């Protein structure tokens, strides 16, 4: 078996994963900012970005279709691996979740948690929250877009639920974006997800050692996760 490591990097996200994630991320940003410009007067200044009063609601609805499509494609395409890998929880996943707050606040290092698979315990938990929240906001959004299906009274209730689901999902996305784009030890994954999908062997060793073992790569010595060790 040839080594999956090339030039000291290993592929973590394949093209399909990056494309569906990209579509979901792009549409989510449009959905969040367009709805903010409609719902909150302090964000009204954003409305011209989405075509002003004439277009903003329509842009929101069409971005919602893209988001729903990305979610459905991801769910259908990734269903098997999701059930086999992500829904399967081991002691190391639970141990990661126990470390999570300390890691989130950078008090603990990723390396302090036991070796993690390609999806660590936190990513597995987030997948459940993101899928539940995404489905909630997409289904209620579709009912609002096709409002003939629910009637006036139905619309009124579904609208409140849509707002709730959207805000709860946003609460999760704030944490997701912080970890992936700003967390000192984890922000490398942002460039991976929005780039060629690879991470450094070093990053994989500190964050996903069990995955490396699984694909037959010897993890590097664990340092402070994601940060290059000082040359001696």
């Amino acid at each position, binding site marked *: 078996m040839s080594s999956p490591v090339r030039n000291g990097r290993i592929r973590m996200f394949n093209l399909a994963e990056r494309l569906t994630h990209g579509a979901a991320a792009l549409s989510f940003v449009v959905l969040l900012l367009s709805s903010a410009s409609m719902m909150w*007067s302090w964000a009204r200044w954003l409305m011209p970005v989405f075509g002003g009063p004439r277009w903003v609601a329509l842009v929101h609805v069409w971005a919602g279709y893209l988001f729903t499509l990305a979610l459905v494609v991801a769910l259908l395409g990734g269903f098997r691996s999701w059930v086999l890998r992500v829904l399967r929880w081991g002691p190391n996943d639970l141990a990661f979740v126990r470390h999570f707050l300390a890691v989130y606040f950078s008090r603990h290092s990723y390396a302090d948690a036991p070796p993690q698979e390609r999806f660590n315990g936190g990513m597995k938990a987030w997948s459940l929250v993101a899928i539940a929240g995404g489905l909630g906001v997409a289904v209620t959004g579709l009912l609002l877009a096709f*409002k003939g299906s629910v009637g006036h009274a139905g619309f009124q209730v579904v609208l409140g639920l849509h707002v709730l689901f959207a805000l709860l999902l946003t609460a999760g996305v*704030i944490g997701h974006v912080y970890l992936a784009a700003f967390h000192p030890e984890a922000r490398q994954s942002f460039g991976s997800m929005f780039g060629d999908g690879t991470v450094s062997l070093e990053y994989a060793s500190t964050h996903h050692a069990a995955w490396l073992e699984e694909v037959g790569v010897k993890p590097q010595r664990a340092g402070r996760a994601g940060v290059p060790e000082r040359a001696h």
Partner: protein
Amino acid sequence: MAEVSILVDITKCIGCKSCEVACKQWWQLPAEIASWTGSYQSHSDLSYNRWTMVLFREKETADGGVDWIFRKEQCMHCQKPACVAVCPTQALARRPDGIVDYDPAKCIGCQYCVEFCPFDVPRYDAAANKISKCNMCADRVDAGMEPACVKACPTDALTFGPREKLLAGAEARVAELKEAGVAAQVYNPEAVGGTHYVYVLPQGQPSEFGFPENLRYPSTIGLWKSGLQPVGEGVAALSLVVTLAAAASAAFFNRNRPDGGEHHE
């Protein structure tokens, strides 16, 4: 500013539809040629370009005869307007004089008003992506004139003026009708805090005149605006605060470990 109202005395309406035409003329709304509705009613319903119209109903009387009912329909200008509560961009706004005004420039076409109006009044146009409705000729009122429909009414079935005066006039008219043997009533429904279009109805239930059977201010507005949305906003704000704290914490811990080497607990 004193509140204003329009009083519609149905017992004086002759169904001439001058109000419909005056409204179209003042607002320069295009004519809409409709097929015959089967009665003297001009069109089947309000539309984006028809903000008021006279509903025509026939009602069988006890002695086998027929009563004709004409009832002008338009925005009721509620004291507690559901449309204003749900309009996200303040395109709909209740003025101090009680008129529920509408600014199309602010309308984003979300149609929440269409879904929440207890009288089913606002009408949406997909091509314009806007709604429309009667605004009681707010521009004419500001210029000291009566609304166009009131100006055109030949029988004074429509009168415009200070709300208190018109309400007193409505009560006096009902007393007068009762004296003449007509079980009349004032329609100024409490469910929406009262309306700035006040009607004198001859005998019969309001639903016989085309008003909603069980008029209610939508309780779903409270569920959404005072329940689900604040909960969601609270959780999102909490997430943001915790995350900012985490970023500050990261700066703190990484300053204490500048070498990025082995991590010691």
